[in-house]
């Protein structure tokens, strides 16, 4: 449904519109997601866990998620590390090379809130200081299962379990909401 733009949108209108757009973006990426990873100064444990995602035990491809080398083809930017001083500019250039719509995910304690480094003379300490972040995946490093949950959360295919610092007890213990099924003509368009 197309809404005509309001002449004098209130803050509430803008917030609601932003949420609608975010929801639309998530749905666009539901069935196929291409990720560009950038190492912004990690210790390499996070990278090792990310690499395991394409190993036979996890097989990220079965979920329609792929890694791409070119930021121009990427839908989601996956960032590890406390954003070192030297990597800030290359990280920003990679983000800017990504076309809209794009998602950004912070992986690990360093990218979420600085890890053991925090903000310092050499580290930014938190990805959200440099880029808008859509999902944070805590851990040191987060296991591949945690990464899967975080990536699916980013595209609206998994439920958030942590609220206000507490893991919500879920009824059937499943994180997933359900993969979207194709509409009769074989493609799932953006719903209003």
């Amino acid at each position, binding site marked *: 449904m197309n809404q005509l733009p309001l002449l004098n949108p209130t803050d509430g209108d803008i917030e609601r519109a932003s949420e609608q757009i975010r929801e639309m973006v998530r749905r666009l990426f539901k069935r196929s997601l291409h990720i560009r990873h950038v190492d912004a100064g990690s210790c390499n444990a996070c*990278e*090792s866990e990310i690499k395991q995602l394409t190993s036979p035990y996890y097989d990220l491809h079965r979920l329609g998620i792929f890694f791409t080398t070119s930021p121009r083809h990427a839908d989601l930017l996956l960032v590890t590390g406390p954003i070192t001083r030297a990597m800030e500019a290359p990280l920003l250039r990679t983000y800017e090379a990504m076309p809209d719509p794009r998602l950004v995910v912070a992986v690990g304690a360093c990218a979420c809130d600085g890890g053991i480094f925090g903000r310092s003379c050499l580290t930014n300490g938190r990805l959200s200081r440099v880029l808008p972040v859509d999902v944070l995946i805590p851990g040191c490093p987060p296991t591949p299962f945690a990464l899967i949950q975080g990536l699916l959360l980013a595209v609206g295919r998994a439920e958030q379990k942590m609220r206000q610092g507490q893991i919500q007890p879920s009824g059937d213990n499943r994180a997933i909401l359900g993969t979207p099924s194709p509409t009769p003509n074989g493609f799932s368009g953006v719903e209003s």
Partner: protein
Amino acid sequence: MIETQSTAKTLEQLIRDVGRDSQRFATATVRADDLPAAARLLVREEGTAFADLFAVDDRDRSGRFQIHLIWAFDPSAAWLDLIADVDPTHPEYPSLAPTLPAVGWYEREIRDELGIEPRDHPLPRRLRRPADWPPETYLLRRDLDWSTTIPRIPARAEDELPPLAVAPEGVVDYPLGPVRSGVVESGHYTLRTVGEEIVDCRLQLFYKHRGVEKRAEGLSILHAPLVAERISGTSAFAHSLALCQAIEMACGAVVPKRAQFLRTLFAELERLYNHIGYQADLCQATGLGVGQAQWEILKERLLRLNATVAGHRYLFGLNVPGGLSRDLIPPVFGTIRRALHDLRTDLDVLEPMLLGSASHLDRLEGTGILRSADARAYGAVGPIGRASNIDRDLRRDHPYAAYDAVDFAVPIVETGDALARFQVRLTETRESIRIAEQVIDTIPGGPIRAEISLPAAGATGFGWAESSRGASLHWVAIGPDGTITRYRARPASFANWQAFPLAVPGHNILTDFPVIEQSFGLSFAGADR
């Protein structure tokens, strides 16, 4: 190992003493101007090797800067730490680089971070310091606070590496990085090619410089191992082990036997998953997808084993000063033994398959040759050095933990190509399993953690461990209040990266580059810290 002051009157006498008495960490003071002469003497000693060169801001205590030159004496399993005082108002000393090419990077680091100038250094440019960091702001001087915001300045040409000469007709320069293809660490290469052949490789690391050494200053000895673990997460156990051993030396602590054995076991578990993961990465580089998948399966099983026995897939949180934070109960040893048995069975099947895959071997043979002389001159360590005929392994030559109680072979290959590095790691994997099994068979009972009493006046200590990539060296100075005043970490990758550019030119074509890089299997995080 006890730190002692030598009674030798001359450096020659000192060197003879250290070469004779085993298991010593000897310290001695020399004048800064005598350092090159000392280096020339040491270089001639058979079976010895350069270990580390770093500086300390000791103004709080002695009013001076200190330069430490640490040398390894393999035949006597001893170390020599030559300490030279430097006047903070005239911070300089004659460069050792003309005698010892291996110290090139180390001196640039001292120059960057303490402002001590190496006179006549062949390439006095910034190394780790970010391009936009003011040159007179010295990271490791004690008066700089970790949380200070340092302003950004434009990069100065005189501090950058001289630009490559303009490429003539037919020569192409490929800049790769720091954001590179795939899920890899950040670092920059410039490859100069003539047609397909690579004629030069310029390396620009240190994008991941987080200031780990600075971060540890002011921390308690319980927190410092958390920092050491996160220098390079895939060598977390080795780094925290070396640091804890340095702290134990400083405090004169005796680690219980059971803890030594457990440390050995975990160190080998770490080596195993790294070497297995290395094979997967190498298969990816050569395009052997089926091989990559099989080795990834083995790596995942080992990571899950780590999670089961240690509570963390990468063995974080185990080493504490004095021993270990947790013990293993007998059923867990059974689990590990079974996993090792299964691993060996899998290797018995996969190794011959890998060695029979012509496409894989063809891409490795003759690729990325690091000549033995170059490896020695630039101080290559670990499996990279051993693949270029450098017969050194800290576990055998300077036994720590329980390595003197187990039997294992150290593979040496002379050819120095990617195939050699691959072979060395295959053999080391087998030896790792053997070591782990011996530990499980012979581990004694008893406590796993000794009490640590901090010396009232402060102390220094040195620790080492052979990580999966080579010799990892850590030095620590603890102040009177029990917190770290200086932490020096020299991961193996820092030493090995210096040698890497030498293996790239020489009949290697552009598409060989990923194979060469993966065959070294180094850590950017370890080098950058």
